[in-house]
């Protein structure tokens, strides 16, 4: 089973699951976390049980996990009394982080302590990382409280899934995307580069998965590889 960690209202999650069609994928929502059946032991996870799509499943039955959310927000916990939502959201996030980090199957992207879906870096940190890798960048200016100018210029976009790249065919830009992904410790990343000079513009750990080839590569990456990075 492939698990997609997302909100039930997330069209990206529904879209990617539609791409996968009859291949076995289930969505893990915040509602699932508030259902009986979860069993997670630490520091040595064993015989863990999860609740996915309302059904109790063994952790061992999960072949791969795609995480499409940074966290669970208090506002989405409609079944929890309003006064308790903030506390419950903190508890659910803490639990989901520990659970995701403990899974031995492929997880795209593996969680970090501050984001369920990997390093949720600010634009400035991506720029600094790119520049220090020697990737051409534009100086990024930020004034607190003032909206940064979006990089709306014409751009090449490349999506990396593991070691594979999709989108623009430029070899150097593809290599630079993979270098950024490695530096950030992620297997799933999209990066944008200016069309004129190939300068790095932005990166995103939640790429669009509407492209059938990207969705298929993500599925393949999750379904066909066992790993143990705990």
């Amino acid at each position, binding site marked *: 089973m492939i698990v997609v960690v997302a909100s039930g209202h997330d069209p990206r999650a529904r879209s990617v699951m539609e791409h996968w069609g009859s291949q076995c994928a289930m969505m893990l929502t915040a509602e699932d976390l508030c259902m009986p059946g979860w069993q997670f*032991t630490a520091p040595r996870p064993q015989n863990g049980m999860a609740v996915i799509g309302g059904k109790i499943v063994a952790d061992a039955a999960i072949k791969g996990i795609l995480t499409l959310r940074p966290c669970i927000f208090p506002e989405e916990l409609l079944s929890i009394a309003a006064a308790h939502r903030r506390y419950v959201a903190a508890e659910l996030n803490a639990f989901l982080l520990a659970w995701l980090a403990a899974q031995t199957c492929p997880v795209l992207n593996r969680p970090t302590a501050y984001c369920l879906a990997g390093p949720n870096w600010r634009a400035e940190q991506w*720029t600094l990382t790119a520049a220090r890798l020697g990737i051409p*960048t534009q100086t990024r200016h930020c004034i607190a409280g003032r909206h940064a100018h979006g990089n709306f210029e014409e751009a090449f976009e490349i999506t990396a899934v593991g070691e594979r790249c999709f989108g623009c065919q430029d070899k150097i830009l593809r290599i630079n995307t993979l270098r950024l992904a490695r530096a950030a410790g992620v297997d799933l990343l999209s990066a944008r580069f200016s069309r004129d000079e190939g300068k790095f513009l932005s990166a995103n750990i939640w790429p669009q998965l509407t492209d059938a080839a990207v969705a298929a590569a993500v599925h393949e990456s999750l379904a066909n590889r066992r790993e143990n990075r705990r």
Partner: protein
Amino acid sequence: MILVWSVPRDSAASAVAAALERWGADARFFDQNDALEAGLELAVDSGVTGRLQLPDGDIRLEEISGVYIRPYETSRLQTIASAPDHAQAKVAALDDALLGWSEITAARVVNRPSAMASNHSKPYQSSIIHAQGFDVPETLVTTDKDALEAFWEKHQSIVYKSISGVRSIVTKVTPAHRERFAALANCPTQFQQWIPGTDFRAHVVGGEVFACRVESSATDYRYPDREEDAPKIQAQELPADIAERCGSLAASMGLLLAGIDLRRTPDERWFCFEVNPSPGFTYYEQASGQPIADGIARLLAAA
């Protein structure tokens, strides 16, 4: 220059600021109560430059060599909470930008936000602690009351506490709790085997370890039920290998300052419960007489 970012009523931040003054360090205190009049400009390429605008004058970011951060939720400060919505939004953006800067600045930051984040999930953090060689209590997080009954049966004596960084009182599970087991289904809850023994608190400050012993018969010494359970705290050196392990643990988490909660069992095993990345160390400093704030000031001044 050293920047302290907090509010004056925070005892830890004030203690560090006072120690910096004693050491004659060039230091500035960014009082979050002044956030309405503050601003931040950043420029990032292969380096990080810019300026922090404060009511008592600007600071060039590249001149900051050390930072001690202990920010409060600015929106809860009275001066900010009473401001118009647009002003509150500006302050929230400043907080975010300053946190972002503290993540990427070349200055020595005590501690970087990303390094502190593991404290938001106790079972996640416990896997890191365990990997560094400390014993950690067997833990069950569950929404299943049968699983809880089995865990209780196995360990005989268990406690429950929050999973997240939200402060909770560690409480022993008793038969009276059984009537609440059905509510487990609403939210995963964390249970741990009860570990008997003596508590220790170790503050790692750079390469130094300040440890103290905490004597209390309370389940959670921070919240004694009776006066006679009030904790008695005194400085005590840790065995060399345990002190070294504390230093390694903090370093592995990227923490320059950490408050580590330990318990030594009667059979001399050392359990580690938690690593606090922003410890309110003054409570222990006052009781033990250990110069922790001075240690932090030295660490910052040496950057």
